[in-house]
């Protein structure tokens, strides 16, 4: 399944018109210990670039933006009790929400894994 990345350090994995969104391992390493994740509600309609979730670390709260437009189908309820999963498995079990895509064409604006790696290497 193709996975795309944003300059704001979100990842999105797409399967048909459904997708899973999270923050990248680089992002979690920069944020440090994550203590709380505010998740979007199922059914919420989101526009590309909207703030959908807030990741609270010991240091600060950081917005997570929707990589593409669509509708939220579920938040990762496991994070309510185990927010640290975002630290230990940011690009796997620590996903933040699932959504349907309104316009698959928006994916064209995102980076693939190699491009994202090159982007992070420059930071």
């Amino acid at each position, binding site marked *: 399944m193709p996975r795309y990345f944003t*300059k*704001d*350090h*979100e990842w999105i994995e797409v399967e048909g018109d459904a997708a899973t969104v999270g*923050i990248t391992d680089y*992002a979690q390493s*920069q*944020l*440090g*210990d994550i*203590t*709380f994740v*505010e998740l979007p509600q199922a059914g919420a309609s989101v526009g590309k670039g909207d703030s959908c979730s*807030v*990741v*609270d*670390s*010991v*240091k*600060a*709260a*950081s*917005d*997570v*933006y929707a990589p593409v437009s669509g509708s939220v189908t579920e938040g990762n309820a496991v994070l309510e009790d185990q*927010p640290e999963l975002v630290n230990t498995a940011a690009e796997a079990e620590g996903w933040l929400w699932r959504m349907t895509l309104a316009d698959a064409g928006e994916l064209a604006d995102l980076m693939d894994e190699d491009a994202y790696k090159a982007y992070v290497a420059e*930071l």
Partner: protein
Amino acid sequence: MSDLINSPETDFEDPDVPAGPLELPLDAWHRVRGGRMVEFAGYWMPVQYEGIIAEHLWTRTSAGLFDVSHMGQLYISGEGVEAALEAALPIDLATLPLGGVRYSLLLDETGGILDDLMVTRWGTGFYLVVNGATKWDDLAHLREILPDAVTINHLDDSALLALQGPKAAKALAPLVTGEQALESLSFMRGAAFKLGGVDAWISRSGYTGEDGFEISIPAESAAAVADLIAGQADVKPIGLGARDSLRLEAGLPLYGHDMTADNEPVEAGLSFGINKRRRSEGGFPGADRMIEALMEGPARRRVGLSIEGRMAAREGAVVLLGENPVGVVTSGGFSPSLERPIAMAYVEAAHAVPGTNLFIDVRGRKLNATIVPMPFVPHRYHRKGAA
């Protein structure tokens, strides 16, 4: 989510500080040990090494080594220095013994807090430690208000380390020699020692609520001394992130956040540092306003808030009584020791009573919060007369 990642850590900016962050004596030392360097108070400083929670808990149970060389170290001396400092600060120096350390405040003419600081009596003058972000303004202010006969030396060729935690004394004692044993220092007392052959001024003080020491050494010896201390089995280097969460749990205010020039000492809960003689005699900047606040009670007070759930309330969040705003959060975050969010806030005095149930508005959500006494985590200072 680039807002945090790509921006500097600090909101402190000072026009007198040279453009761009400066390197402190231990810059390379931190980088070699994996410290993640951020800009703070005009310097590159380590925000964390292995992680804030792990470093925080290590300091609470063992001993953490902090580099606080960004702080301003000043030596103030000259004829009439004692009277001059008493005219500049609401401090009682008459009762401060040689080597004694006392907390004080730099106030403006209207009683607003310009900085908080530590004052130590040395043989012929006084040693001051002021905040890094405010040190340039403090220097300018002190130069203006102190008489010409008094000399201010900015000890900018000195580094400052802090070793904090229940195992700090055990870790440091074998490394030092002096006229007195390190263990004989009680809280808020300091003395000269040799630390690995280096001249060190060591006081039993800190900013974590734990027992511990602050260690002033020549900058050129900082790396060797840091190596020596960090080489002890119970010691790990700790970053600024844990320093902030530790001081928050200890109920210790951070200048620029929990007190500013908009706060006078009584509402900030810092009038404990101003004793009976200075309160009755006055004779320091802002005395009138402070004495008025003592007599009539302040309009608002700095309080501690314990928050339900796991979502943290940060600086700027509005505190509500029912629907009505009654205060604002000045520091807040997740407490690693208590495993829940805590905060400091200014709340209208009528409601600033422990046990009062309030809400904090965080991004439109109303968090349940209760005013609790501070510190949130008990202090464990090595007080005189204690075991």
